[in-house]
């Protein structure tokens, strides 16, 4: 489903954020990406979405080499991937409802389907009451949950989440994790960058650890730290 082959990324200012990384993620996998702050987790995710292009190497998503994707094709790649961004990226002048509905309008979904799916999804992430609010009227954790709702509303085959629980209290975070596991059980590939040691240690899924742009560990049923 997702495959990186000798991928390196150097930002224009000279920062080498990814160094010759190769890895494979199969359909239906649930993968944690961990690593210290600034190790390159977000860079990896940005490259999967073609927000950044690798300096060298090949990235294959859904059997397509996305480094060679034409500009016109990029939106269709992104529609395959539901994404929770680390900085949320909610549309500031749309309400919670419209923000989530927008993701469905983009793929030209049926309005009836939109009216059905949006409230259901908002309910799943526990933010249904706030559907009329604008992003600036929400708390940090509430914004994060709206971003998650938007990522899952289209039932995309891939779900990428960059710190989806960073602003949530442990209880809410666990509810979100249960939701992600449910989604994963329905066959969706989930890639999640996280710092939550407790969650990683408890769930025992595949863990990819990045340090300074290099994959230093890739273990099935791993914990947050090497020793676990």
């Amino acid at each position, binding site marked *: 489903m997702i495959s990186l082959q000798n991928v390196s990324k150097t930002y224009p200012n000279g920062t080498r954020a990814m160094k010759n990384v190769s890895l494979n993620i199969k359909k239906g996998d649930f993968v944690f990406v961990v690593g210290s702050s600034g190790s390159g987790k977000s860079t990896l995710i940005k490259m999967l979405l073609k927000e950044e292009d690798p300096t060298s190497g090949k990235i294959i998503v859904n059997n397509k080499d996305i480094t060679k994707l034409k500009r016109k094709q990029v*939106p269709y790649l992104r529609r395959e991937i539901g994404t929770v961004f680390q900085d949320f*990226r*909610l549309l*500031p002048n749309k309400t919670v409802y419209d923000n989530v509905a927008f*993701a469905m309008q983009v793929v*030209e979904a049926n309005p009836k389907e939109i009216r059905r799916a949006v409230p259901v999804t908002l309910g799943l992430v526990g933010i249904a009451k706030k559907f009329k609010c604008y992003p600036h009227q929400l708390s940090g954790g509430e914004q994060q949950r709206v971003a998650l709702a938007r990522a899952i509303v289209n039932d995309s085959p891939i779900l990428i989440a960059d710190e989806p629980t960073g602003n949530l209290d442990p209880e809410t975070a666990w509810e979100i994790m249960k939701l992600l596991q449910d989604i994963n059980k329905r066959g969706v590939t989930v890639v999640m960058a996280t710092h939550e040691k407790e969650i990683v240690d408890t769930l025992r899924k595949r863990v990819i650890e990045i340090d300074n742009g290099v994959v230093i560990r890739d273990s099935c049923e791993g914990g947050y730290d090497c020793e676990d």
Partner: protein
Amino acid sequence: MTVKIRTLRHLSKEGILGIWENRLMSLASIGTIVLCLIILGVSFTLASNVDYILSQIESNVGITAYIDDSVKEDEITTLKTKLEAIPNVSGVTYVSKDDAFLTFTDDSNLENIMKQFEKDNPLPASFEITMVDLEEQERVIESLEQYDELEISYFQAEAPMLVQLNDSIRYISMIIIISLILVGIILMSNTIKLTVYIRRREINIMKYIGATDWFIRAPFIIEGISIGLIGGIIPIFALWGAYSWVLKVVNSRFTVMIESIKLQSTADILSAFTPMSLIIGVGIGAIGSIISIRKHLKV
């Protein structure tokens, strides 16, 4: 670019909503378009009136052909018909000896002197000849010189001078109008650029979610066209009101002076300015938004 009808409807709604959601920027854009088009309208009105007045003056500058006293009264009509047949002649008016004397005594401060001639009028009869195109005066004169019974008098210097002046004024007003349109385009694309710059984050986010270029662009273009339309309609009414008022004032105050010279009617001005204003307004709204959004779509 296959889009479903409901998507189109949705995008139009987004575009119209966008005008309200971005009130400040919409007002700025509409204001800029209105102000530029009003300046354009005023320049256009001035230029087209100057042109109109000059062409009236031009058609009043004519050739005087004095008729030899030997020509009999009944030959005059034949002669007049012949002169009227000369190419580029637009009108021939006969001025009899009596008419000439009356005009002369009327005009001059020398009444006393002229009284001596009352019995034996020394002034000749004449034809006043006007032309279609003043630049062709030379040819008309050549034709006239074939008639020995006519002595021709014309403003040798003034005619080409007037043509030159007229050309220069047309030229200058063209330059002013074109510069104004350019100024307008620059100001408006600046405003639109700023508008889009403010919303670049929004555009980026849409792209990251998987929206196609057209899905993002359409509301902006619809917004741009609507803003251009509003900005194009207002100057028409403003010019209508202002020009009617100016005409009224001019007609009531300067009738004595400009008896023979008329200004263009409100209808003339508006029938030329309306399509100009609408096309420029909508065109700039649409093109401006397409151009300024382009750069932010590349993410």
